[in-house]
Each structure stands twice: as C-alpha cells, then as structure tokens.
C-alpha cells in the first residue's frame, strides 16, 4: 500500500454521490455526475478528476496508481463491476459490465468496451475515437458513429432520471468544502 494520503474530496453541488460509495484520496467530481452506491473511487497515488454527466454504477472501481492526474471527461458511462485504471478518458465512452482497463491504456472519446473485456496491454497505447472493443478476446473495430445523437440523448436522460431518483432512496454525501 502506498503511504496514506489525506482525503480531499470535492463534490459539485449538482453531483449525486451516496454515502455508500467509497471515496479515498484526492477526488474531484463534476456537475451532474452520478455515482451509484457501492462504487469505489480510489486515488492511490495521484488525484482523480471526473467531469460532468458521468454515471458510475454499482461495484465500479476507479483507481489511479500513477502520480499524474487521472482525468475523466464528460458523459461517460461505467457499468456494473468494471475496473478502470486508465490515466485519461475522453467523453461519451461506455465501459460495459465487468470490463477491465489497465493503466497503460488511454481512452479518447466515443469508445465502447464490451462486457467482460480485458484491456491489459504491456505497452502504453491510446484507444482511438470510435473504437469498439468486444468479445472474449477483446477484438476491435470502428464504430461509424451512427446513432451517436440517440446515445447521447439516452445518456443525458439516464443521468437526469438518476439525479432525481437516487436522492429519494439513498443518503447523499457532500464534499469537504460545503
């Protein structure tokens, strides 16, 4: 274990973070981002900055083992039980259930990583825009971008719905500042 870091958690007033979620280290959560209960965000070495409109479902694990800042863009969806250590993530990506992304992969934008895929290359690489990773051997192909608007619309409505519903059933957590 690395030396214990002081927790410094900044949560935007319009973000939804339940008390059941585990946050450790230096974490910034942007406006309209939804964290489900039982998700874990662990800034082990460097800080984690999450943009706006992201959704982190149950049992998601975000870890930053590097010294640099782990930057996550806007409108990303992390589905149940995925584990992401990627040092930078763009916008509108989907990481499906129980996928694993190693710290050697940087994700750009509009990428989709299928259920149960392992993305663990030994050398650093950047996942180009519109990459789809799928299947048991993590094959790749490119998405044409069709249905992008519909996807964005669904994502936005999903976040809006959760923003309204989650606080009714879960105790929320506030950042250190407020």
């Amino acid at each position, binding site marked *: 274990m690395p030396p214990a870091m002081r927790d410094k958690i900044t949560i935007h007033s319009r973000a939804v973070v339940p008390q059941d979620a585990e946050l450790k280290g230096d974490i910034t959560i942007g406006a309209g981002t939804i964290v489900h209960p039982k998700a874990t965000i662990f800034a082990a070495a460097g800080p984690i900055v999450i943009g706006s409109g992201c959704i982190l479902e*149950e049992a998601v694990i975000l870890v930053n083992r590097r010294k640099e800042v782990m930057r996550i863009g806007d409108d990303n969806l992390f589905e*149940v039980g995925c584990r992401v250590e990627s040092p930078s993530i763009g916008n509108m990506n989907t990481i499906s259930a129980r996928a694993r992304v190693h710290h050697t992969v940087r994700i750009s934008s509009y990428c989709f990583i299928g*259920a149960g895929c392992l993305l663990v290359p030994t050398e650093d690489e950047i996942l180009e825009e519109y990459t789809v990773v799928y299947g048991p051997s993590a094959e790749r192909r490119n998405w044409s971008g069709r249905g992008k608007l519909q996807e964005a619309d669904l994502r936005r409505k999903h976040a809006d719905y959760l923003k309204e*519903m989650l606080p009714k059933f879960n105790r929320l957590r506030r950042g250190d500042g407020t």
Partner: protein
Amino acid sequence: MNTPIYYQRGEYIETDTGNKVSRRAAISGPQNIILGGKTIISSNAIIRGDLRRTGPGHAVVISLGRYCLVGEGCIMRPPYKTYRGVFNYYPMKIGDNVHIGANSIVEAATIGNYVEIGKNCIIGKFVIIKDCAKIADDTIIPPNTVVPALTLFAGNPGQIVEDLPETMQEMVEAQTKQYYTRFQPYPN
C-alpha cells in the same frame, strides 16, 4: 447431499414467509422488492429496488418467486431504456425455484421458473430467460437475448450448447427445495 449448509445465526434475517436475507446484502428501496417466500439472499448481494419506474403510487421493481437463491456478491438491477422519448427503468420478474450463482450480474427483464444461472455470469438488459433453462458459469448473455425453455446456454456471447432433458423441472425443483432445507443456522 443432505449435509446442512450452516450460517451464523445473526447473519441472516428470517421473515414470516421463510425468506432469509443476509444483513450484509445491500438492498436499496426494499419497499419495491417482493420476495415470494423461502428465498435466500446471500451476503454482499446488491439488489436495486430504488431504480423504479416513474409514475404515481409504488411500483414493483424486482419480484422473486419461491425457493430462489441470490448468490454471494450478485448484483440485481432492473433494465432501462427510453420508450417514446421517455427514460425509464422497467420491472424485473423472476419466477419460482431460480438459483443465481455467486458474483453474477443480472439485468434481465424476465426469468422463468426452474432456471439455474451459474457463477460470474453477466445477463444483459432485457434478456428473457424461459422456464427450465440453464446458464453455465462465466456466460455473458448480450442484451435483448431470449433464452428458450430447456436449453443450456454457455460462452461469451452466450449460445445454445445443448437441449436439456424434460426432467429438468423436477430436478431443479427438488434441488432448490433441498438447498433451502439444508441452509440453516448453526445448532446450539
């Protein structure tokens, strides 16, 4: 096969209808969850009853039948979609005598009776599993799949591997009932 499976007395709460729910299971929105009776929810399971359909009154989010088992670390959450431009979560219905193995993720719309789901499975959104089907361990079933009755599904993506014998119903019924009777607190 009749050896009891013991648990610490304080760990499970037993209801009047014989449901056994672990204290260490995370159940949100319990008022929206229906358990049929003699159903076991193991520890560290996550059941999301809070993701309900919008609208007045209370909506059932997850209903489980009798003699079901939700394994350790299972995550059960209802599926979502937009329909006519409105975003909603949709209820999840699970029949009687259904066993779900440890660490599986279930987002199915309907699961029939006498279904067996293995360990570490991922059941996608709006999957329909018919009666007496069996899902092997580590299977990943993509969203919107229909699993026909009396078939064994396996692989990633899940596919039909073989047909199951017609005795499946009696076998699973006996097995699930036996599991419930074997599952008991330490005698003291």
